[in-house]
């Protein structure tokens, strides 16, 4: 009912990379992913024929079971991994290797434990603007630490912070370099439900304010519904009667809920339960978990 694309039909792998099922028009789309595939075993790609676009200022979540290749897609977008075939374009230019234009928030916060919060973020800011004087770097650092509400802990080491605070620092670091888009690899996966809720709210506020383009991996259906403008549902690769079918984007769900939604009021909105049931049904029955 909300889908842009019909569900994928099981197609044998041999013709998958060449079959032009759905060409993305090359004119629009801030981030364009075309016919991406990744194969660790030659004849059994983890996913194939993955194509989608992100508009500027759009928040897109990708949801799917473990092993379907979500993180690989994100790493390819980040430039940390290479696809077996296919292309990624951002702002009309092909993505080749990591870049300061795309900020990444890692699942395990990835803060450097020997640096304080201030130094961690300053490291990023200095990398982005090497010519800046120390004072200007400091202003930028303090601004983004304040944005995630951690000014009181700015001179603490990550080991002195709670899990939620560390992840906030990770988010502040990604924002501090003012990238053209953000990539979030399941950033709240390791947090408890209460902390997760608070940080989701904060992230949503910041993203709305900064008009940031975001691509985010999540396992949490409610998180996706709260944050995303569109939700990509991804299926795992599987053996079927007709042969191996690689994983891919099975469906793109457009979030019909008003953009000004909040976590507290989410479940009172019309259409919330239908949307949630639709995604859960997909994960339970169609996504083929291993």
């Amino acid at each position: 009912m909300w889908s842009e694309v019909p569900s994928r039909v099981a197609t044998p792998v041999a013709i998958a990379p060449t079959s032009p099922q759905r060409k993305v028009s090359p004119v629009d789309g801030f981030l364009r992913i075309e016919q991406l595939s990744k194969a660790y075993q030659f004849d059994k790609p983890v996913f194939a024929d993955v194509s989608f676009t992100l508009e500027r200022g759009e928040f897109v979540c990708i949801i799917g079971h473990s092993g379907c290749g979500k993180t690989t897609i994100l790493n390819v977008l980040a430039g940390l991994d290479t696809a077996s075939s296919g292309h990624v374009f951002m702002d009309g230019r092909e993505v080749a290797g990591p870049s300061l234009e795309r900020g990444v928030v890692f699942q395990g916060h990835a803060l450097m434990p020997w640096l304080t919060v201030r130094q961690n973020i300053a490291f990023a800011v200095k990398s982005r603007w090497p010519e800046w004087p120390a004072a200007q770097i400091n202003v930028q650092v303090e601004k983004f630490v304040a944005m995630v509400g951690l000014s009181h802990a700015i001179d603490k080491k990550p080991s002195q912070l709670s899990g939620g605070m560390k992840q906030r620092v990770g988010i502040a670091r990604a924002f501090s370099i003012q990238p053209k888009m953000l990539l979030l690899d399941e950033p709240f996966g390791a947090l408890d439900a209460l902390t997760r809720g608070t940080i989701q709210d904060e992230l949503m506020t910041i993203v709305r304010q900064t008009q940031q383009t975001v691509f985010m991996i999540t396992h949490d259906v409610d998180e996706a519904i709260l944050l995303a403008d569109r939700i990509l549902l991804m299926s795992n690769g599987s053996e079927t009667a007709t042969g191996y079918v690689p994983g891919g984007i099975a469906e793109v769900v457009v979030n019909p809920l008003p953009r000004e939604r909040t976590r507290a009021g989410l479940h009172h909105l019309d259409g919330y339960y239908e949307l949630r049931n639709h995604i859960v049904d997909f994960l339970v029955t169609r996504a083929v978990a291993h």
Partner: protein
Amino acid sequence: MNSARSLQLKAALLSVLILLLVLGIWYIATASSGAAGAAAGLTAEQIEYAKMMGKEVGAAKSSGFPTLGQMGSTVWGHLANPFYDNGPNDKGIAIQLAHSLGRVGLGFGLACLVAIPLGFIIGMSPLLRRAFDPFIQVLKPISPLAWMPLALYTIKDSSVSGIFVIFICSVWPMLVNTAFGVAAVKRDWLNVASTLEVNPLRKAFLVILPAAAPTILTGMRISMGIAWLVIVAAEMLVGGTGIGYFVWNEWNNLSLTNVIFAILVIGVVGMLLDLAFGQLQKAVTYVE
């Protein structure tokens, strides 16, 4: 806090008791042997004669073990005047120690200069790691003193040979630990550096080096421990100066008080070196 302090106090008290016990045993053991020598009722000339004839060697030896009083006066003599220099075979303990520490410092420093950069490269490149591995595995277990003849033959200078032996024994633990530490740097941190487009030099010094520093320091600490063990043996071989030569020289003089004093000094200096590296290690260790 309180219980920790009382535990510390008890431990210190027990340490003192153990020391007193050891000294007490020493006192009683040497006192009785001295009494036995006196009970034999020999005059000084007779003892001298017996020694010259090589008789009663056992008795002479047992009475030769120094008493606590003799030991104390030797220790005091050394500590009161550590810097005297009366020619090649009679130098103050501080001068001998300075020679030993100088050799260890030079050999260890050279080993740092070689092992840490090389370990860095080996740690970063799986290819080089595999290529170097057989050499490291073969060279590592060789006793450093086994290199001594080869060093003496090729270098033709005993003092430099000593430094070389220190170098060769310090290099392996540092090399292996540096390579391991660098190879084990968390993927996440390297990914952060990549996405921030950090240049290789900055990445090496600001990400990999601090991340691997605790492991590297552990290697350096082990190396320093081994170097201090080896310097004594090396100086016994090459002679001339140093605390190892001092021990050998005093053994030739049959001056057991001096030998015991030197042993104690070696122990204390070794402990201080280890403490210093322990502090350094603490300074670079981080909690994840």
